């Protein structure tokens, strides 16, 4: 069709009323590994799947790639271009710090993410810029309670009860939807196990023989944002596997490409050192084909 005439500038609409560059930016999120956010009355947790490169120093002094603390009451988990994620993290941290200096209190979580959405929107409407190629799940706790927010490259900010983004996240979303009603009353451990089970559900039936590398972070009432240590992550992973039922076909009825072997997500996306190869993108947006 005439797609190619409208896909080069983010400032040009297609005849169907779509912004192709924004949709391509959304595809970048699907290049990242899956990450899940869910909340109860007292806690909000972020679980991220790591696919570590054996040559990389992946987890040193508690730092890892996917989950970043913003303030003592807010943290985010990202999927997509890591360099863009770092830039956004820096902006959010700076915002929270300024707010703390001016008002000596914590930035309300909803406002932080609404304002982030406003900032990201300008990248979708400016000639010489591009949208941020990273999807963000934010978890926070403030006076209004626990929050999970999803921010996408389209600058949409969604207040979520639970959410999963990244490669093959549809399976995780189905799991979350199925168990949604039980989250409000979950204990901290149960909540984390649900999150890990959601990630396992996204793997389909190809869960590797070696254990998954799961990163967990939690924030809540009287609980400052904290990414758990390697030992704790392993402990929760074992707990989730033990408590959860073995994955059956019903857990991933909507996951597509389940016959493909689970390939490592493009290392370029995680490191952000090169651009994305756009040549194989589908004509219609978001048909669920994940990489």
């Amino acid at each position, binding site marked *: 069709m005439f797609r190619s005439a409208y896909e080069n500038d983010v400032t040009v609409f297609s005849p169907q009323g779509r912004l192709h560059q924004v949709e391509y930016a959304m595809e970048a999120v699907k290049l990242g590994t899956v990450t899940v956010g869910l909340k109860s009355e007292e806690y909000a947790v972020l679980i991220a799947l790591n696919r570590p490169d054996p040559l990389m120093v992946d987890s040193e002094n508690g730092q890892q790639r996917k989950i970043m603390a913003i303030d003592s009451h807010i943290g985010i988990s990202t999927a997509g271009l890591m360099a863009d994620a770092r830039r956004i993290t820096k902006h959010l941290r700076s915002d929270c710090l300024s707010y703390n200096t001016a*008002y*000596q*209190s914590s930035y309300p979580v*909803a*406002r932080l993410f609404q304002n982030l959405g406003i900032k990201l929107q300008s990248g979708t409407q400016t000639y010489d810029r591009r949208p941020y190629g990273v999807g963000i799940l934010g978890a926070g706790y403030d*006076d*209004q309670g626990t929050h999970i927010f999803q921010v996408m490259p389209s600058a949409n900010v969604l207040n979520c009860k639970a959410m999963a983004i990244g490669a093959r996240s549809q399976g995780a979303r189905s799991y979350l939807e199925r168990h949604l009603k039980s989250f409000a009353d979950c204990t901290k451990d149960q909540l984390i196990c649900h999150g890990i089970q959601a990630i396992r559900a996204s793997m389909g039936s190809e869960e590797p023989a070696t254990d998954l590398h799961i990163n967990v972070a939690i924030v809540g009432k009287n609980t400052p944002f904290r990414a758990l240590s390697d030992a704790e992550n392993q402990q929760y992973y074992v707990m989730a596997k033990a408590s959860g039922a073995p994955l059956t076909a019903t857990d991933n009825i909507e996951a597509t490409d389940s016959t493909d072997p689970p390939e490592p997500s493009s290392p370029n996306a995680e490191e952000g050192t090169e651009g994305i190869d756009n040549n194989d993108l589908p004509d219609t947006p978001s048909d669920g084909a994940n990489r």
Partner: protein
Amino acid sequence: MFNNGIVQPLWYNGPSPGQFYNFPGYANNGNMKQCHETNNSDSTRSTAMITTGSSVLGIKFDQGVLIAADTLVSYGSLSRFQNIDRIFKINDNIIMGGGGDFADIQSIMRSIDQKMIEDQCYADNIAMRPKALATWMTRVLYNRRSRMNPLFIDVVIGGIDENNEPYLANVDLRGRAFSDYVVSTGFARHLALPLVREKKPADRDFTLEEASELIRQCMEVLYYRDTKNSSQYTVGVCKVKDSTSNQCDVEGPFQVDEKWSFAKMVKGY
């Protein structure tokens, strides 16, 4: 070039080479360098107070805070505006009493009103808390004083913080802030503060009745002794109504119960 061996200056009434120069007609825009040498230009700036409000007194009690101020704005020693409310309800959590230059009070109130409107525009039921407002004011006032362009105000900010805790603070023109169970500005600092501190029970907060009685007594003392106080005053009340809402109003005007019968005992009356 050299007359009688004395070096003549290159020019008069102009910049001295190597010195900072205040160009005439430019208002001092807060440049720190310009503040440190003598002003050799035509621009002058008055930092004196013109129309002033006198004392403000705030008392914290178990369920909230009371802030009282008389309704007088003076013009030097003239009691110019006698019916001015100097206590403001900021939002459902905060009341503020303003002393010092009243034009500056009105100016900062405009900024605060803009902040409250921004809060409302978010439409997320998050209203500012007194500690946040007090901290913000401290930053603003300190910044202004550091630029040698102060707002000549002394304010008392009080209200209900998170967890339904009462909060009371005093911020002055230099950006000095502190929080306590009793704070005051102006003459009340000398006359009312010791009075309230003496009455404070050691092991508990004031009750609303005790705090109200103390306000009444202090306003009376201030009227008798501070020549720039009047006998009419208003009181802002911000107290916890239930776990989700507060009762926040400015009440009054009240009258000091003046007793002048002792005048007959004064020789020369």
